[in-house]
């Protein structure tokens, strides 16, 4: 491969008493797609922030195109040809894709009082699209675009202005469906063909083999391994083991040994116009029911319909044999249904508050023991016990939830669920943005919950659904797909969710 466009050596960074990065060596060549792997806290984000000029390194050397650089601001990095697309790209929803791409660069002279030449913008967009032929309607408002189209707009925005040599993508696929992911990979292929080096952060290990040429693994603030995908394949290297630093077994707990118990939740012909139609399923005590569906398949909507957020148009819900109508989360919680929502930061937690506030939130009646005033000591004891059960780290009841990693935030939501003492637990996308160590713990907790309650796991990660559930079905464009007989194999489940077909 060509000479590296970007190199780093001996880079270190300290935050107070914590050595976040130590002696990191790194390089990436033009046209190389390089994956950056590591569990939360391994130092990936810190390293990326240094590369994109958001924070400054304490020591070490970074070169771009052979020249040493010192970035003080993000603008410095952009000027040097390093463009970054954040995990959740910030775009203006009411403006078109075109206007978003050139936002702030409408005319040659930057500033507040430059004349906007819409024709010229369209010309520049055309030139950009001819360099990177993405099939994308740039006259559409961003608010009406799909997740991958927004990601494409964000990437085009990042590379449009300057002469970009390195593009950093921070977990771009975490909100994408499998099909959208292919679109994104196609775009990455175009960039690669133009000689742009791509640094790509992901938690999805299989993506590394699908798209990357090489990868680096971060652990405890340093880069512990760098190899090409071919080398990894040849050597049968386990990426998960490298990330955790020790050989780990299967992250999924063993399946239920005993036969499932009574039906707790029975869903009959549930229908919500435009989202899903004719869904019938039964969740039993003692087993984990898995539902696999891509974004847009109606999975999230189904969970919210059962939980009473958006009540269904028709169909029946039975809990322990009794027909119930759940028209609000309050009603669902009272009936014994708990939802671990897909977007834990907005739907699951009050981020500004600590575990002590969040854990009892969905069952304040228990916190008050039937009275109006809270039994504070008992509430604190329960919260401490439950955060211990879910292995919250650090085990603080008073640190705001915003101060925890994604995995530990999810554990707080789980503790909140445990406190609610529900009979049915519905998990939506339970491990998005959760590192592999916390994932294993969350799966084990699901299994544990299933002993006394019915557990439904809904996810767009086929391996997760197949790995954790005893019984699976797929949702495809709002319709359920079930195996003809027995249970789905992993591949059959994937086919069912993506194509809507049952493999014979």
């Amino acid at each position, binding site marked *: 491969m060509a000479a590296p466009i970007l190199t780093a050596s001996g880079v270190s960074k300290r935050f107070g008493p914590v050595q976040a990065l130590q002696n990191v060596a790194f390089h990436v060549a033009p046209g190389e797609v390089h994956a950056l792997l590591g569990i939360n806290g391994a130092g990936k984000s810190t390293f990326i922030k240094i590369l994109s000029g958001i924070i400054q390194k304490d020591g070490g050397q970074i070169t771009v195109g052979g020249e040493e650089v010192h970035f003080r601001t993000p603008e410095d990095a952009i000027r040097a040809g390093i463009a970054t697309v954040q995990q959740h790209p*910030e775009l*203006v929803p009411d403006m078109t894709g075109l206007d978003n791409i050139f936002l702030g660069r409408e005319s040659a002279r*930057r500033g507040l009082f430059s004349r906007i030449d819409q024709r010229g913008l369209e010309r520049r967009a055309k030139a950009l699209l001819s360099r990177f032929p993405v099939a994308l309607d740039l006259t559409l408002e961003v608010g009406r675009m799909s997740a991958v189209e927004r990601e494409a707009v964000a990437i085009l925005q990042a590379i449009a202005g300057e002469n970009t040599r390195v593009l950093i993508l921070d977990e771009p696929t975490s909100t994408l469906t499998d099909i959208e992911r292919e679109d994104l990979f196609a775009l990455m292929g175009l960039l690669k063909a133009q000689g742009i080096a791509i640094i790509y952060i992901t938690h999805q290990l299989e993506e590394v083999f699908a798209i990357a040429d090489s990868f680096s693994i971060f652990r405890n603030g340093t880069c512990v391994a760098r190899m090409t995908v071919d080398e990894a394949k040849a050597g049968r290297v386990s990426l998960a083991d490298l990330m955790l630093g020790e050989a780990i077994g299967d992250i999924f707990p063993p399946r239920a040994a005993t036969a499932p118990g009574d039906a707790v939740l029975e869903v009959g012909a549930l229908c919500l116009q435009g989202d899903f139609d004719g869904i019938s399923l039964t969740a039993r005590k003692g087993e984990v029911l898995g539902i696999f569906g891509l974004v847009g398949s109606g999975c999230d909507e189904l969970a919210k319909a059962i939980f009473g957020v958006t009540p269904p148009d028709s169909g029946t819900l039975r809990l322990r044999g009794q027909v119930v109508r759940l028209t609000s989360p309050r009603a669902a919680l009272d009936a014994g249904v708990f939802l671990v929502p897909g977007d834990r930061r907005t739907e699951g937690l009050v981020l500004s508050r600590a575990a002590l506030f969040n854990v009892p939130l969905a069952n304040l009646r228990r916190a008050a023991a039937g009275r109006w005033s809270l039994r504070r000591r008992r509430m604190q004891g329960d919260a401490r016990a439950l955060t211990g059960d879910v292995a919250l780290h650090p085990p603080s009841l008073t640190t705001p939830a915003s101060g925890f990693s994604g995995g530990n935030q999810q554990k707080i939501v789980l503790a909140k669920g445990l406190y609610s003492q529900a009979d049915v637990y519905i998990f939506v996308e339970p491990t998005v943005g959760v590192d592999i160590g916390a994932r294993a713990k969350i799966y084990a907790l699901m299994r544990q919950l299933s002993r006394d309650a019915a557990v439904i796991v809904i996810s767009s990660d086929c391996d997760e659904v197949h790995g954790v559930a005893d019984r699976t079905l797929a949702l495809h464009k709002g319709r359920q797909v079930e195996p003809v007989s027995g249970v789905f194999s992993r591949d059959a489940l994937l086919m069912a969710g993506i194509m809507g077909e049952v493999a014979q």
Partner: protein
Amino acid sequence: MTMTMTKPAESHRHRTRRRLSRLITNLWLVAALVVLTALIASQRPQLLDPGNVVAVLKSFSIMVMMVLGLTWVIAAGKIDVSFMQVAALSNMLCAWGLSQGWGWWPAIGAGLAAGLAVGLLNGWLVAVMRLPALIVTISTAGLCASLAAALGKGTVIRIATPGPVASLLEPQLGGAVPLIVLPVLALAALAWFVQERLSMGRYIYAMAQNETAVRSVGIPVVGLTLLLFVFSAVCAALAGVILAENLASGQPMIGGPYLINGLTVVLLGGMMVHVGKPNILGTLTATLFIGVLFSGAALLGLPDYQRQIIQGALLLTGLVVAMLAARHHGERRKGG
């Protein structure tokens, strides 16, 4: 494939269609204005007497001056509730300066300088110190009101000699138009140009939707916010100076009623041209609408407090309509 290919020609047609529908959304408030004028004139023909038209246009000019900057502040997703007290302060400062024998130009300069200072303070506190705009401007409003009252020790200051703006307030052009309308409209036209054709206009609306996005592409959001608050305060200060000339006095309590008037015209105006977004042309139309409505109400003999009730109700109605329009817009978006 989830991404779709569209021919450029289609985007052109799309745009012309959008322009057409934009024209229709432009028209409704203008149509309402015409209907309202006709209705009132049929009951009270005096509405269209030259003397009354002059009065309406004069208060129109002052009101437009007062809320020109406010329009953009609200369009950018911020709020300024100090503008009317800035006008009161500038009005009093001007009158007080005259009473000290400064002469008109220094007095006007002092009024405008006060506006500039308050605008800078508002802008600095909101943009740089990141304090909530309502708390900041509610405080500077209190400050300005106190200073305005203190200048006259709580009472009115009379102005003896007419100043340079006086001739602009006299009826001209057939006795029905005060010339002050012309510079005010010219300024509004300039603002319209900035809003529609320059990058600043685009950034104002983008800021209301996603400030982080605007900030992250390197647009000077702090400077823009500062500029918006300064512009708002300076416009209001100018209105205060015109008021001094118009009333031949400095009135410390003049600010009060302009708060609700200003918000009403900006939000009512935000329901045309760019629906849901306050804009200059909408503000102009809505100001004229309110001016005719109030003039008519006075001719019909409604007492002051009834007008206040009508105005509050109108503002509430406007809010409901705007919200319904936005919801409709959102549903269409979801469907399409």
